[in-house]
């Protein structure tokens, strides 16, 4: 058991990259990628970070995962840059992934958060075009104040997943976020979801909107089947809205606005029994 710290840029699987003069064994070793070093976990390689083990990427350091890395009941701390660009990064069990302020997690291939694992995004997370981020089976993702998530690819939040949005989450043109099969996504009062692409809320998915949810003119909000959006304040609908699910306005003061803050509907003053009038 040892802590392996990078001493230069290079391959994960080269002994010359590490201060221990050997290749780390993630069953028994911890790994630190030091500032100024770019360590590449090569294509075709696979490793499992065992329970209680830890990977730390220090500010200014970069870890590029071109193979497959799996973290089970373990910890990944990112102060620098982590890129999942080969097969996948799979975080599961009681594992924790933390992207600290100023750090970046970029997914160009696959990212999975599963089986009650947690992710705290305090820096920048980017899901690139063609990439997949998949949350399933009771994981929890929190976008903290100061953090941002941008998706140009595909994001599934499914099967009892939870996501809490406390800052800016943008679904860019070409990006899709789909909620289905019992997930709960909460946009807290400090949070904002900007939809320039597509968001699907379907099949027993629930979205609680205390903060900002805005669909731009090119965006699509699809609420189908038993999907439900509870709006506690306002919602901005500048794009398309489809589906047979429900959007429930929970407060008389709530407004349905376009993306430029103009009212789309004006509600009658009669509390709880009003007809909606087109503005």
């Amino acid at each position, binding site marked *: 058991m040892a802590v392996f710290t990078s001493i230069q840029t290079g391959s994960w699987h080269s002994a010359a990259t590490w201060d221990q003069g050997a290749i780390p064994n993630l069953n028994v070793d911890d790994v630190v990628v*030091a500032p100024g070093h770019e360590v590449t976990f090569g294509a075709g390689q696979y490793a*499992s970070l065992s329970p*209680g083990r830890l990977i*730390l990427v220090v500010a200014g350091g970069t870890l590029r995962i071109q193979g497959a890395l799996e973290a089970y009941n373990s910890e990944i*701390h990112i102060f620098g840059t982590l890129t999942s660009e080969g097969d996948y990064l799979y975080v599961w069990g*009681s594992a924790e992934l933390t992207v600290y302020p100023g750090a970046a997690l970029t997914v160009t291939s696959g990212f999975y958060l599963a089986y009650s694992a947690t992710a705290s995004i305090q820096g920048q997370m980017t899901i690139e075009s063609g990439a997949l981020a998949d949350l*399933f089976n009771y994981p929890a993702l929190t976008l903290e104040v100061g953090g941002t998530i941008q998706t140009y690819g595909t994001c599934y939040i499914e099967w009892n997943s939870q996501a809490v949005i406390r800052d800016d989450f943008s679904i860019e043109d070409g990006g899709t976020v789909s909620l289905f099969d019992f997930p709960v996504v909460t946009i807290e009062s400090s949070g904002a979801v900007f939809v320039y692409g597509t968001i699907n809320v379907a099949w027993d998915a629930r979205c609680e909107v205390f903060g900002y949810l805005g669909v731009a003119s090119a965006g699509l909000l699809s609420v189908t*089947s038993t999907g439900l959006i509870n709006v506690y304040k306002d919602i901005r609908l500048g794009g398309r809205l489809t589906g047979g699910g429900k959007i429930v306005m929970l407060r008389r003061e709530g407004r349905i606005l376009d993306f430029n803050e103009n009212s789309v509907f004006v509600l009658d003053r009669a509390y709880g029994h009003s007809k909606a009038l087109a503005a």
Partner: protein
Amino acid sequence: MPPLNPDIPPEVQDRLNRTPVQRKADLEAKRQARLDAMTPEERAAAQAHIDRVDAIPDEKRPAFVQGARLAVTAKTIKARVDGGMDLRDVLDQLDAEETAAVDWLADQVTAARTP
């Protein structure tokens, strides 16, 4: 161990200094707190997942990961088809490369289950 970088908060340095057993216990305590916040039904279902995963031998974890990806996809498609979606419509959305991969998997599943 001295601090590696002044940008690393002390609590993360502390994580590095803790033993794997301590870290595992910390993670388990946090997970338990999340479970405690669930409804009894949710907690029972989540705990069942956890128990099942914890029982997997280390050497089988890579296979379990792939099995979990396969299962969640199959469960989702089954739920949609049970809800009235036509499976042919699903398959029609695949391009040639994706169709070849699905066909390969279907053939392998059939072969693996054939005595």
